[in-house]
């Protein structure tokens, strides 16, 4: 089991009801973290439309997560 800090933004933050939480879970990749939070918060977005960052670096869904990492979950962006 790993301790992962998860940060939610925009729609995800509203759905989670919190901006940040610490989860203890069995996750190998960023995708695993996303799926775990989906179950907890019923997020309707497919991950293909979303982006993820690990410790303030843009990452892929297949990127490995380590104990103590901060995973940032970004719903579909719409700047400009």
């Amino acid at each position, binding site marked *: 089991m790993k301790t992962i800090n998860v940060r939610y933004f*925009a729609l995800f933050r509203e759905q989670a009801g919190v901006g940040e939480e610490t989860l203890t879970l069995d996750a190998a990749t960023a995708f695993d973290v996303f799926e775990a939070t989906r179950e907890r918060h019923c997020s309707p977005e497919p991950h293909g439309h979303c982006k993820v960052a690990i410790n303030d670096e843009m990452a892929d869904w297949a990127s490995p997560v380590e104990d103590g990492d901060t995973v940032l979950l970004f719903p579909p962006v719409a700047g400009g």
Partner: protein
Amino acid sequence: MIEIVETPVDTALLADSLRDSRAGGYAAFEGWVRNENDGHAVERLEYEAYAPLCVKEGERIVEEARAKYPFIAARVVHRTGLLELGDCAVWVGVVSKHRDEAFRACRYIIDELKVRLPIWKKEHYVDGDSGWVNCERCAAHGQRDHGT
């Protein structure tokens, strides 16, 4: 090079900051809050950004543009928070020796930052609804929020 700000964007001041005696062309783009999107009358917009990654990714985009279309200088400013109709949400300014590089780099930067920067836009509609732009079920979500 790229800034996320919570205050109104002073585009005249920003353009002045790019002045350079070698520059023959200045191309700029401004995104303004308009009164309609996809048939919905919009009252105001709310932007949320994750600034640390906006700056990192924004600088990467500007450097990509510089490699493709060598320019003298470029700057980007994106505003966050609650914006009213007509407000400037984003400004991109590029100066170059000749106009082609300025135009192309400016277009590249705005196109890329719209799809790559961690920025989100919530539309507040005249009818009281609201929704996060580009989110698949925003409409449904907005309706849940407002009980309509």
